[in-house]
């Protein structure tokens, strides 16, 4: 455990100076721009639920899946340069701990993105003059659910990023699976089983939209998310433990 924490703090140090915080800011910033011009379907000022769904469209549909790929690619970048894997794994550390520390960092970065996104939604709502009370339960619940739905994607991307030395190649995979989201989110048949669209499905307040795959029970979501998470993390971990550096 102590080793894990020390690797984790080393990972944090390696990220300093990588301008990764700009990426953390990007999606909430874009969401604020969208939120400032949002209106309710009837016209006029949106309420909190509508504001959340409007602002989360770009954020959860495209940014979250892509960011899970970008973060993991950045976490592996240092090691791919100049024989960093050799230098790191020659130290008395277990490979499992290294891998899990990298994954934890990715999860923390995604959580930070989500926290900033909640702040962005609330800030936008206050600027637009949407009255209190702020529905904290709704915000925290949806953001936590979509964060959970991002974990399988981060696990897959970490597996790919540690295997491929190029920065762009894992992202090519990531984005080519993310773009079909635009279509798949509207499909009630395929939406529930496509891991990349789950952050979006988890983010939309339940019972709000009556089309597409947006009205899923939380249980079926969890089965897809947890199943793909276990699969991707185990596959990545196994391949990392056996990887020749």
């Amino acid at each position: 455990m102590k080793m894990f924490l020390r690797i984790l703090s080393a990972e944090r140090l390696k990220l300093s100076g990588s301008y990764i915080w700009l990426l953390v800011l990007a999606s909430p910033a874009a969401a604020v721009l969208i939120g400032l011009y949002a209106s309710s379907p009837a016209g006029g000022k949106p309420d909190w639920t509508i504001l959340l769904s409007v602002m989360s469209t770009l954020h959860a549909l495209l940014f979250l899946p892509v960011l899970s790929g970008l973060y993991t690619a950045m976490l592996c970048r240092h090691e791919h340069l100049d024989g960093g894997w050799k230098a790191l794994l020659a130290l008395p550390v277990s490979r499992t701990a290294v891998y899990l520390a990298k994954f934890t960092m990715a999860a923390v970065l995604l959580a930070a993105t989500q926290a900033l996104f909640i702040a962005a939604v609330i800030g936008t709502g206050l600027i637009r003059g949407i009255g209190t009370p702020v529905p904290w339960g709704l915000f925290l619940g949806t953001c936590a659910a979509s964060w959970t739905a991002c974990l399988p994607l981060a696990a897959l991307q970490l597996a790919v990023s540690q295997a491929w030395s190029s920065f762009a190649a894992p992202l090519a995979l990531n984005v080519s699976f993310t773009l079909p989201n635009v279509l798949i989110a509207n499909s009630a048949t395929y939406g529930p089983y496509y891991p990349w669209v789950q952050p979006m499905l988890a983010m939309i307040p339940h019972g709000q939209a009556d089309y597409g795959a947006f009205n899923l029970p939380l249980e079926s979501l969890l089965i897809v998310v947890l199943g793909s998470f276990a699969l991707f993390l185990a596959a990545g971990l196994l391949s990392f433990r056996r990887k020749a550096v």
Partner: protein
Amino acid sequence: MGRILAADWLKIRGKGLWLLILVGPLGLTAMQALNFGLRFDYMKRRYAGDLWGGLLDNTALFVPMALFLGGTLVCSLMANIEHQTSAWKQLLALPVSRIAVFASKLMLCLLLLAVSCLLLSGFVTALGLLFGFGASAIPVYGILRIGFLSCAAVMPFIALQLWLSLAFRNQAMPVSIGVICAIVSPFTATLSEWLPINWPYLAWTGPHRLYFAGAGLALALLVLLPGAAHFARKDVN
């Protein structure tokens, strides 16, 4: 120049670039195959007057995104060949002019994109024929336009990405910028048409599409000049 291009041609083998060039148009076509295939009767009724036009319009929605993304990845993967192995020093120590090196990377990038656009036209035609839209009604100009005009309008972005990818050893920055541009691009369509990020889509739709394609090419030249100048003068380490 020809020999540098030939060398670059050899260097991109086995780097996944050709795969990317194939997968991009294939993926776009597969998305439309699903889009139409899953609700064929509805789509056929909706576009009853112009089946080919409906297919092309639906495809064109995703072409700008794919071009932004593909351009970013092609530039980055190509620049990464030298970055990864620190081969810039060796390459530029040879008796070749730096402008020629830059130009050959640019030519290769354009060539790959052109192949990709051509493949897209081919795949979309095949899909339309498969759906039985009729060979006599094929809108040849529209099918060629779908990739190539948007590609012309995306050139400023490609020039910028090539510059950034060649300038920074850390590919995280150019790739992040490219990917973010790609996923934001569908959401900026309502903003001003002066924004270059909207040009690839405007080069498909609207009355002034040739203007946007032309403006793209002109702006690309403007971006290329500082890019090439920077590459010609930059320190190599």
